[in-house]
């Protein structure tokens, strides 16, 4: 075992020792580096003047990353930069502005044209992907920080994220309807895809809900816990497919989920929960006054940390994977592709783990908060 490992060590050491030679002593790649560097500076200078389109490979990759993590008004699978053709389909745009304005996002032609609806003109801003009201020429006025000062109509559009959420919800609905139906038909034995989900459902009931909420109250929270677990899990997993979907890596969506947990926790809380916040039992009286504001803050920090945790994990995972894939285009040598492929592969496996882990953590912490909202009166009993 030890002997067979040594040549591997040696080979690895040699490979690492020669890695810089391959990358940095290669004259062709050196020149490309310099060219991209200078082009990058030019592009930056140009950017300050007139928001020029990115030209060199580095800013193209950055622009792609930025575009990916934003929501979009059309579903583009991939684009051909030479012909400028986008493979995908448009989604409906619904705006509340002088009445309801409903039109297809194909009118924008991927953000390049001004869309007109009942005499109102709209344009998609390149930097935040949002729709702004404009005039027929599509002028956008900007303040000192580069944020548009145009009016933003209230946007109820079926964007890419909303579209994916609808698809995933329907998928979950039919999968679990099938699972429920198979119990009635086959005498309590799950059939088909339900066989994969049955252990997960039981796991959430037996390992998450019952230990954290308690035998007595867990049933009324099960539907929410199961929904949130599978919703987050499916969205995390579709985010790893090459369709370019980033739903749980969008802070507004995780905020929505966290607000649901917040509302359910506080609406179903009993008097012990509020007692623990405003008049903590079992501590000296002066300390209770100090603890009350801290505990009250904690009520809001809990859902806030739920929101940040899910968003940041998924967002960071997407950015890291895309950066590593981007290395392939920056290195431009034979080492780049296998290196970035290998790293991206390993990281994708890690991201599958993170997808499950974050869905689990979100459900687990929600269950923990519901449990604290339903805590029975046992602290005094324990002291006596």
């Amino acid at each position, binding site marked *: 075992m030890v002997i067979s490992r040594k040549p591997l060590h040696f080979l690895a050491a040699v490979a690492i020792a020669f890695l810089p030679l391959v990358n940095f002593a290669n004259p062709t790649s050196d020149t490309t580096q310099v060219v991209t560097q200078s082009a990058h500076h030019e592009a930056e200078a140009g950017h300050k003047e007139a928001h020029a389109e990115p030209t060199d490979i580095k800013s193209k990759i950055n622009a792609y990353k930025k575009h990916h993590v934003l929501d979009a008004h059309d579903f583009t699978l991939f684009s051909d930069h030479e012909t400028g053709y986008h493979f995908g389909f448009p989604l409906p745009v619904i705006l509340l502005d002088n009445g309801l304005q409903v039109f297809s996002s194909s009118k924008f032609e991927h953000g390049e044209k001004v869309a007109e609806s009942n005499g109102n003109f709209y344009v998609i801003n390149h930097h935040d992907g949002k729709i702004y009201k404009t005039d027929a020429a599509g002028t956008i006025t900007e303040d000192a920080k580069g944020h548009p000062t145009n009016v933003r109509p209230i946007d109820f559009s079926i964007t890419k994220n909303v579209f994916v959420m609808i698809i995933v919800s329907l998928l979950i609905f039919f999968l679990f309807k099938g699972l429920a139906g198979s119990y009635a038909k086959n005498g309590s034995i799950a059939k088909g895809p339900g066989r994969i989900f049955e252990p997960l459902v039981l796991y959430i009931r037996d390992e998450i809900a019952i230990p954290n909420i308690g035998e007595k109250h867990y049933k009324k929270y099960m539907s929410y816990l199961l929904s949130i677990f599978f919703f987050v899990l499916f969205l995390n997993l579709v985010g790893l497919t090459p369709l370019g979907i980033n739903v749980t890596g969008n802070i507004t969506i995780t905020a929505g989920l966290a607000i649901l947990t917040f509302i359910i926790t506080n609406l179903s809380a009993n008097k012990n929960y509020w007692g623990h916040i405003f008049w903590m039992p079992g501590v000296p009286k002066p300390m209770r006054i100090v603890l009350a504001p801290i505990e009250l803050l904690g009520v809001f920090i809990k859902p806030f940390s739920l929101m940040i945790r899910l968003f940041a994990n998924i967002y960071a995972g997407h950015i890291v994977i895309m950066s590593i894939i981007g290395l392939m285009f920056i290195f431009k040598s034979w080492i780049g592709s296998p290196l970035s492929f290998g790293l991206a592969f390993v990281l994708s496996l890690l991201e599958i783990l993170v997808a499950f*882990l974050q869905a689990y953590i979100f459900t687990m912490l929600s269950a923990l908060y519901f449990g604290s909202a339903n805590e029975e009166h046992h602290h005094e009993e324990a002291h006596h």
Partner: protein
Amino acid sequence: MEGLNYVGAGLIVIGAGLGIGKIGGSAMDAIARQPEASGKIQTAMLIAAALIEGIGFAALFAA
């Protein structure tokens, strides 16, 4: 004093990393002592790690 917020965020990330490392190490010790309790220990470990991670990410976004 520009850029100090990044130093602060870096400090918090170091702290969070140390904290999660400590939790992981302690969980390993605990599992080695009581392998039959490994399921419960893992759950508790994940919750504690997730709470610390939340602070780390909050610092990253504040910076």
